[in-house]
């Protein structure tokens, strides 16, 4: 059975990627399980320099979801390359670096630094962080901005470029199209939904940043719809995510059109979710006699009619 996924020059041994910001730098999980079983891992978002992020509280739980405004605390590109990357290489991880920037020049510079380093498989462009003013969302919410960032990074790296799209727009598929036209090798979606929770007793926001990003199972049906829409619009692979908690959820994204899936919040709930996902997908492929995972991608059957009877 072939679970591998090709994204530009990068080949993932399976479609399971640890989502950015939900897996630290990867090394934190080395003594929890063998992280080389992952198809890949996306690092915490990296700027050129270190950042301390927002003051706590940074998260609050919501029905079947969570709100976060970490504020992209991170060690910056250079320290990552020096301190973390060698360990990740030694651990046999396929590393996708989540690149942030406050300017197009910063995106390009961070991308150049990680491209020069050894052991980076791809670049995920975070143009969709809803939690900090300079989080690139100004690029992620404009078609020209999206095109410009991808175009600039394309000039400085041979690595696969994977812009990560925000769901906080009217027509996400048009952003996928803009990224494709600018030379992106794939797109990741979705990042979190801008949201807020209020402590009614204090009449204050529950997190220090006032608003944060909603993730987890709550958003899954919206994310699946967006992946499906993008699938109709672009030819490049889609890395689908948003609320995946079990193999059935992952398969939903794949059938909707995702070539690979990322899992974030569910890794908090169960750091051992990965083997369960892998087993569940393998079992499904056996039951349905699917030899290559790629044969399952985007196979949603939308003929109406039969869908009717519930007893079906």
């Amino acid at each position: 059975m072939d679970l591998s996924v090709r994204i530009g020059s990068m080949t993932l041994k399976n479609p399971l990627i640890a989502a950015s910001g939900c897996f630290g730098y990867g090394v934190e999980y080395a003594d929890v399980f063998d992280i080389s079983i992952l198809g890949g891992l996306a690092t915490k978002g990296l700027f050129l320099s270190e950042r301390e992020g927002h003051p706590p509280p940074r998260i609050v739980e919501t029905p079947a979801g969570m709100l976060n405004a970490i504020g992209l605390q991170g060690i910056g590109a250079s320290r990552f390359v020096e301190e973390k990357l060698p360990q990740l290489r030694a651990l046999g991880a396929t590393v996708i670096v989540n690149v942030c920037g406050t300017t197009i020049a910063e995106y390009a510079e961070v991308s150049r630094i990680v491209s020069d380093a050894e052991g980076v498989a791809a670049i995920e462009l975070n143009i969709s962080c809803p939690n900090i003013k300079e989080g690139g969302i100004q690029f992620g919410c404009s078609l020209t901005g999206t095109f410009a960032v991808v175009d600039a990074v394309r000039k400085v790296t041979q690595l696969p470029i994977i812009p990560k799209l925000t769901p906080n727009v009217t027509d996400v598929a048009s952003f996928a199209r803009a990224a494709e036209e600018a030379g992106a090798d794939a797109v990741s979606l979705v990042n979190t939904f801008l949201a807020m929770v209020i402590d009614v007793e204090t009449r204050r926001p529950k997190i220090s940043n006032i608003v944060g990003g909603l993730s987890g199972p709550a958003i899954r049906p919206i994310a699946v719809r967006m992946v499906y829409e993008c699938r109709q619009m672009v030819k490049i692979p889609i890395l689908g995510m948003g609320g995946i908690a079990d193999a059935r959820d992952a398969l939903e994204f794949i059938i909707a059109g995702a070539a690979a899936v990322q899992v974030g919040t569910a890794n908090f709930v169960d750091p051992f979710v990965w083997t369960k996902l892998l087993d569940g997908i393998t079992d499904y492929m056996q039951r349905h006699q699917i030899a290559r995972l790629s044969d399952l991608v985007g196979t949603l059957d939308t003929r109406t009619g039969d869908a009717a009877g519930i007893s079906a």
Partner: protein
Amino acid sequence: MPIDVAAHVVANHALSTDYNVLSLAAPGLTTTAAPGQFVMIKAGRGHDPLLRRPFSIFEVLRDERGTPTGISILNKRIGVSTGLVYDARPGQRVDCLGPLGRPFTIVEPPNEAWMVAGGVGLAPFAELATALRGRGIATVLFYGARSGAELFYLDFFRGLGVELVLTTEDGSLGERGRIVAPLDRRLAAQPAESALMVYACGPEGMLAATARTAARHGRRCQVSVERLMGCGLGGCYSCVVPMRTDDGRSHHVRSCIAGPVLAGDQILWD
């Protein structure tokens, strides 16, 4: 090396309308557990509540042969998940991930050990006291709560030979007021040459006061902090505590992996 155990409730003892002790059969979990470590618990099924919740390991449960069979947690009901833990029925499944975090550093004689607990902050001290007394260390428990009805397990600590100093906000048991007051007086009375370690766990305000008091008297202090934790493994950066770095800067440290036990004098208490 934490593991995730589908633990089953073996007993649920209500201590009050808010507090209970939940005993969990969790073989394997406790083989490496040290005082001050915690577990991440998921008490409900489904996705609401979604995240696990951190709980100190209160007691390591053992069979007659002394082999660990599981743990108990001292729970205070303040919301959804602690409510589920309070209502948990024998036989019910509770997912239990651990042991997690940096434990207390246990001193050696001739050190004395002073444990300062506020409310449910008592939780990590049952195992710590057992370890300390096992090394023959003179141990004092400063323990404060809202009222005498919320001061638990006193006989357990007495049985270990731990000296108790109690305060209640309503004065119903021990001295009226906050626990830091007697701690302060006693620290002042303590001969300077004596070796001493202060251990503290409880509400943020109490921890800050304890750390400052210990520092003022030139005493080392290990505090176990309580932060909202999304993962307990260093993955989410939700649990950070602002701490002073060696070069004097402020840095957000992940209390789930650098802590929960941290050096009181390095935390930047706001």
